[in-house]
């Protein structure tokens, strides 16, 4: 076991000694900062409702919005949503929560797409680069089984994903705290639901936002890892994985009328389709079905990577 820890340590040294890795973190931090700056520039949400007269404020805003609808076509289509939301606050007597670092963290869940991108880049390179550098030859002539080497690389990728996720979380919280301050974490927020709105604890919202997207992250990372191992080409692995990450759901939409579309990976990666009153992409799909499909894909990716890596003749390029 200690041997495996040393191997994983080796892989991490190789990831974090390269400057390009740190550049990724810098870009991620830059995006969070820009996001916070933009929100701050256009006005912090809920800022007007923090006094004791928040009910009055909401009512006045509703009147203003109604007036706008008569003049402006865009407002006419957009404003009813806002009015309804305001009414929900009034009806349920919930004071809109102070916008703070925690809410900002929740909204940054969208940046998990960027985290996926970074993890895919690492996963795509971790095996392919050893072939490109030629160092694979020196790596495989050690008293360690090939399966162990590959496992250490896969674990290193997952750890990188975890660290990057933590970085996103912490950086978003810190930047959020600087821009918006920190208020209570047990706030309740109002969100869209199937019919109308629903109120849920903020912490639960953050948790669901992040955890469901992790499925996509894990599957795409494992796919990139497999392509990297099988084709020894990091560009190909990045290209294919990113393309599928971006366009996966559109592909599913396009083929939505076909019976077999539910067996496509991307019809199943977004498990949010089963919660919060959403309906699945294809009728008749269940959470159990999706999890089964995901597991099958995962096992195929992992098995392919391992078998190819163990059997491969490491000959010249």
């Amino acid at each position: 076991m200690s041997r495996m820890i040393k191997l994983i340590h080796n892989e991490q040294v190789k990831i974090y000694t390269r400057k390009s890795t740190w550049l990724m973190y810098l870009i991620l931090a830059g995006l969070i900062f820009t996001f916070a700056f933009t929100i701050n520039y256009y006005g912090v949400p809920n800022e007007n409702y923090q006094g004791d007269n928040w009910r009055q404020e909401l009512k006045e805003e509703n009147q203003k919005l109604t007036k706008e609808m008569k003049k402006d076509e865009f407002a006419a289509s957009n404003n009813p949503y806002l009015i309804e939301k305001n009414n929900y606050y009034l009806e349920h007597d919930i004071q809109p929560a102070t916008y703070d670092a925690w809410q900002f963290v929740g909204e940054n869940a969208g940046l998990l797409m960027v985290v996926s991108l970074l993890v895919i880049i690492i996963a795509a390179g971790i095996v392919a680069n050893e072939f490109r550098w030629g160092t694979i030859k020196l790596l495989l002539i050690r008293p360690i089984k090939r399966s162990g080497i590959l496992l250490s690389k896969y674990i290193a990728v997952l750890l990188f994903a975890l660290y990057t996720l933590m970085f996103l979380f912490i950086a978003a919280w810190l930047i959020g705290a600087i821009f918006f301050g920190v208020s209570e974490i047990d706030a309740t927020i109002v969100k869209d639901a199937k019919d109308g709105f629903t109120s849920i604890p903020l912490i639960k919202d953050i948790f669901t936002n992040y955890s469901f997207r992790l499925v996509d992250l894990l599957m795409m990372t494992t796919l990139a890892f497999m392509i990297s191992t099988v084709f020894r080409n990091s560009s190909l692995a990045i290209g294919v994985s990113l393309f599928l990450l971006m366009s996966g759901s559109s592909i599913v939409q396009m083929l939505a009328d076909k019976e077999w579309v539910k067996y496509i990976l991307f019809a199943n990666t977004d498990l949010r389709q089963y919660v919060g009153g959403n309906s699945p992409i294809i009728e008749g799909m269940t959470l159990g079905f999706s999890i089964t499909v995901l597991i099958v894909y995962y096992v195929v990716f992992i098995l392919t990577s391992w078998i190819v890596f163990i059997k491969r003749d490491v000959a010249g390029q």
Partner: protein
Amino acid sequence: MANAAIELVNLKKTIGKKEIIKGLSFSIQPGEVFGFIGPNGAGKTTTIRMMVGLISITEGDVLIQGNSIKTDFKKAIREVGAIVENPEMYPFMTGWQNLKHYARMMPGVTKERMQEVVKLMGLEKPIHERAGKYSLGMRQRLGIAQALLHKPSVLILDEPTNGLDPAGIREMREHIRKLAKEQNVAIIISSHLLSEIEQMCDRIGIIKNGKLIKLQQVGEVENDNLLHHLKVAPMDQAKQILNEQLQLEAVELDGNLSFRCKKEQIPKIITCMVENNCAIYQITTANGSLEDQFFALIGENTIE
């Protein structure tokens, strides 16, 4: 031959329908330096890759200290240190970080051992620079350093003189002789240049088109028919003496008399010349007799 450090048993490799290595069998004793010679494309690197388990073995086996690389990989490879083709390192890490990386993969490599190896290869100065900045010669040394870390009993060096200047080759030769002698390491050196490694090997094997065509001790190179060049005056008289008195076939070549004879005959030839008042300016034994033989065996550098 029971205690061979490494033994190849009828080793074969077939890729597709083409047999690349056609049954190699030889063994190397501890403390022996074995030169593995052949033209480019003869199968040297393929053989070496099979010896260290990088590519699968179609038929036969490689035994390292009696352990099969096929069935007992971990035990067998523990005894091996190797460079396969170019000594590639992680360019973004320093020499020391590279060594540390490999040290973590093997049991019992201490910091002291790493420092020892660095000193042995004369890398103290550049060891904390990024390996990407190293010259090929420095990388070659770093490559050998990583191969020595775990005190292997078999050292496999693929073209280790590549990229070294003459002084570097000379130094390498001394390192290798020292390792074999003092630490009883069995060393295999491959090269397509016989002259570069001839002087460091105890024995050479010549491979051509996947077959071993000659195994020979370097010391015992055919003693009886060495080519000699004699610078002497007067030439005609000397030629006559050689041809008639000593029954040697001498020919004039570039102002020298060239002939083949045994080493033991030389004093007698000189005495003869002096007795007949011939002035001897120089007598040389043609170097690279092995080289001549090598080309005779290899012929044109053809790849099947």
